[in-house]
């Protein structure tokens, strides 16, 4: 329940790390990086900070899992003998922290080889710290599963002054419940767009390169698009029963997308290559917004979970990539994508049925009581 589901729920994250570490970095890059980390005890704090962030992600998962209604049976944990409680808690966090232990062991090995005892000791202390914090946090939540939900200070300030507009329902959910994914996607897509526009300073390229950059950047937002779809059809499913015209439904979601894609749009507009005509900026932005619309339409054709939708995303990206290489103008791709997405969305909206056959991550994020 805690270990297997944790790894399944964060499979995307682990795949990204494996892809980055195995795809971009060669073995001597890993060794060089490890030697840099362990060169002084101060620098060792960098990987330890990363491990603490990993532990935070893990603690959040454990906390949400404990608070789920279907897991109420676990409340009887407190009647177990203390020793057994700690044994169980430490065992769970240890297995969840396995990737951390493996990298720590690698760092220790390199440190030992170079005789950097202080760095090795710092790593050991860091690992003990991570395990202790994670275990104590986990045990605390097992003892306080019904911990009273606190309202954020900002909510206490805003609630009397603001009536949330409908598009904010989605944005707020993603910011509150999918913050790690949101931040990761934005950092990745922002870097891709920034990096692509920077290439124009080194050589002469046409708009194709920028279009490919946009394509990769927006595809990194696939998780956010899935999240918006889940919020609309699971957490706000009552909205389907309201007499809202299709255009108003679509515009609400499009406003949410516009806000969620604002960082990419700003980065693109700010760093838009001077060599390209300004109209290309409008064209690539239209292409940028058309991709989530197309995927959103696809999501209404048939209920699919994350694992089932990813191959479709992959083939679409390949298709767009080829079309861009064959000089398909971004504005045309934008119009076709948006039109196809909205058509599918309209056609299948009322016949679509969202099953709770979701990915474990999505299930875990149905934590309905925590604010």
């Amino acid at each position: 329940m805690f270990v297997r589901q944790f790894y399944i729920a964060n499979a995307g994250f682990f795949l990204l790390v494996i892809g980055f570490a195995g795809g971009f970095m060669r073995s001597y890059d890993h060794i060089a990086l490890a030697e840099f980390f362990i060169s002084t005890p101060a620098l060792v704090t960098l990987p330890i900070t990363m491990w603490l962030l990993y532990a935070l992600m893990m603690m959040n998962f454990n906390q949400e899992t404990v608070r789920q209604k279907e897991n109420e049976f676990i409340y009887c944990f407190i009647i177990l003998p203390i020793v057994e409680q700690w044994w169980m808690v430490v065992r769970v966090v240890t297995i969840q922290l396995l990737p951390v232990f493996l990298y720590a062991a690698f760092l220790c090995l390199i440190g030992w080889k170079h005789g950097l005892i202080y760095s090795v000791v710092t790593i050991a202390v860091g690992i003990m710290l991570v395990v202790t914090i994670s275990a104590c946090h986990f045990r605390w939540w097992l003892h306080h599963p019904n911990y009273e939900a606190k309202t954020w200070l900002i909510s206490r300030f805003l609630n009397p002054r603001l009536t949330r507009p409908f598009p904010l329902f989605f944005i707020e959910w993603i910011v509150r419940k999918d913050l790690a994914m949101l931040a990761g996607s934005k950092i990745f897509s922002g870097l891709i767009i920034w990096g692509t526009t920077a290439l124009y300073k080194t050589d002469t390229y046409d708009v194709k390169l920028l279009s490919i950059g946009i394509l990769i950047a927006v595809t990194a937002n696939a998780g956010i698009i899935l999240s918006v779809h889940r919020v609309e059809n699971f957490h706000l499913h009552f909205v389907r029963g309201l007499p809202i015209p299709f255009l108003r439904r679509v515009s609400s979601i499009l406003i949410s997308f516009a806000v969620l894609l604002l960082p990419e749009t700003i980065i693109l507009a700010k760093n838009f290559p001077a060599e390209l005509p300004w109209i290309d900026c409008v064209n690539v932005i239209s292409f940028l917004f058309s991709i989530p619309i197309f995927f959103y339409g696809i999501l209404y054709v048939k209920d699919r979970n994350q694992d089932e939708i990813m191959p479709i995303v992959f083939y679409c990206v390949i298709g767009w990539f080829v079309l861009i290489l064959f000089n398909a103008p971004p504005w045309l791709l934008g119009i076709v994508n948006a039109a196809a997405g909205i058509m599918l969305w309209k056609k299948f909206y009322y016949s679509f049925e969202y099953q709770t056959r979701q990915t474990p991550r999505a299930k875990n994020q149905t934590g309905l009581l925590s604010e």
Partner: protein
Amino acid sequence: MVKIINFSKRFSGELIVDIPILELSSGAYWIKGDNGAGKTTFFRSLAGLIPCAGDVEFEDGVSLKHSPIQYRKRVAYAEAEPLFPPYLTSKDLLSFVAKARNSAPVQLQLLTKKFGIDQYREKSCATYSSGMLKKLSLAIAFLGSPKLIILDEPLITLDENAQTILTAIIEEYIRDQQATILLSSHHLLENTELKIEKSFTIKDKILIASDPA
């Protein structure tokens, strides 16, 4: 008058409920059935929340399949165990639904006052008790001018006072708007002041008229 024609609902090919024809005029109807009989599925299908086979039609021809927006203007649904995003306040939810259902501000104020949720309007749903969430869900269901109001287990988690208020509101909607109210409840509705027109039981995937209430 609401007419349910050739209605059936399946999950993964398995038949859940099958209703060849059912006509309901104004009044309160009690839908009974064991746990898992398909009451909620039936209700959610009628409310347009999940797709189903067949159609549901009002006497002027407005139907679930052919006029989804008009149909949804006339149908409202309150869930048995309502859940709303925890960060939203009842003000956010009620304002949004009131706008969608063209409900007058005075109706919104009246309903929130009757259900006693007006003083919690600015608090987020995370701080609500299950009874408060239920009241919010019921207030949402009565917004606008629905002709078919579907209340799934409306009495659970409600205190006695709120039950009396709910009964009064149901009677008011039947009297003033000729509304059809569908209720499911494991409570004995005979013991309430609500006049039940007819009761039905979902058994073996079909709806059968049960003993008069």
